[in-house]
């Protein structure tokens, strides 16, 4: 893409790319915190609205887990895109455009876990 080509061409000079929303890491982290607040406040009404069988605490732990998965990201544009995706999920949850099954998909309840040790992988077939 044009922006990445320009940045590669200007090697040695500082990278200047067009920001998506936030100009530096602090602003991006602020957006993350705002999103976390919105999700944290939304969980009790989600549990009530969709009639989920989980505790509010379990729901909040799951939100924290999803946020922690991307803790290591440093690029403000990647953080912005993740925040945008999180906001889309939040909007769908608030307006009940999702259904109970979509929310419970976060909890991976009926997925068979992928085999990790050699013998289980061997038994389940060639799947490197």
């Amino acid at each position: 893409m044009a922006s990445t080509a320009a940045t590669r061409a200007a090697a040695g000079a500082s990278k200047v790319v067009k920001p998506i929303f936030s100009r530096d890491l602090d602003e991006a982290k602020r957006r993350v915190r705002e999103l976390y607040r919105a999700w944290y406040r939304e969980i009790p009404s989600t549990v009530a609205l969709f009639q989920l069988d989980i505790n509010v605490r379990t729901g909040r732990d799951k939100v924290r887990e999803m946020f922690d998965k991307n803790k290591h990201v440093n690029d403000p544009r990647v953080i912005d895109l993740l925040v945008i995706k999180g906001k889309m999920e939040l909007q769908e949850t608030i307006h009940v455009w999702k259904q109970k099954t979509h929310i419970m998909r976060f909890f991976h309840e009926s997925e068979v876990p992928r085999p990790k040790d050699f013998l289980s992988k061997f038994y389940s077939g060639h799947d490197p």
Partner: protein
Amino acid sequence: MAARVLQHCVRTLRLSSGPLALRAAVVPAAPLHRALSFYSADRRTRCVNKFPSLDVLCRQYGQLPPLTLESIEERVLYVLKLYDKINPEKLQATSHFMKDLGLDSLDQVEIIMAMEDEFGFEIPDGEAEKLMTPDEIVQYIADKKDIYE
């Protein structure tokens, strides 16, 4: 204000009715110097005890008890002790959330949200990210609510 005028009428009625004449005479001088919140707390206790028939004239506005720096600190530390990621023995007024107590930035956000729920007013994120010790939180709330010593 209307409350003060009504109080003055009640006071004069009581003066004329007599038994607490001495105490009631001293009182009208004092309220001018006290803050209105303390004044109304006193008025509530006195009204209910002595002259139940005159309660109709005492309008009792719903007010929370006045905040003091000690009460704010007590409530903040109480809420922090209830938080399950904080060890209550290690918690002090000056313990830093990230350095001393080993909490995350998202944990700090949760703590600030608990403070918002406790004290009933919004703390915007630009200022919330700077509050890193219980002392700073107490200072911020005292600044917002105009409480000083």
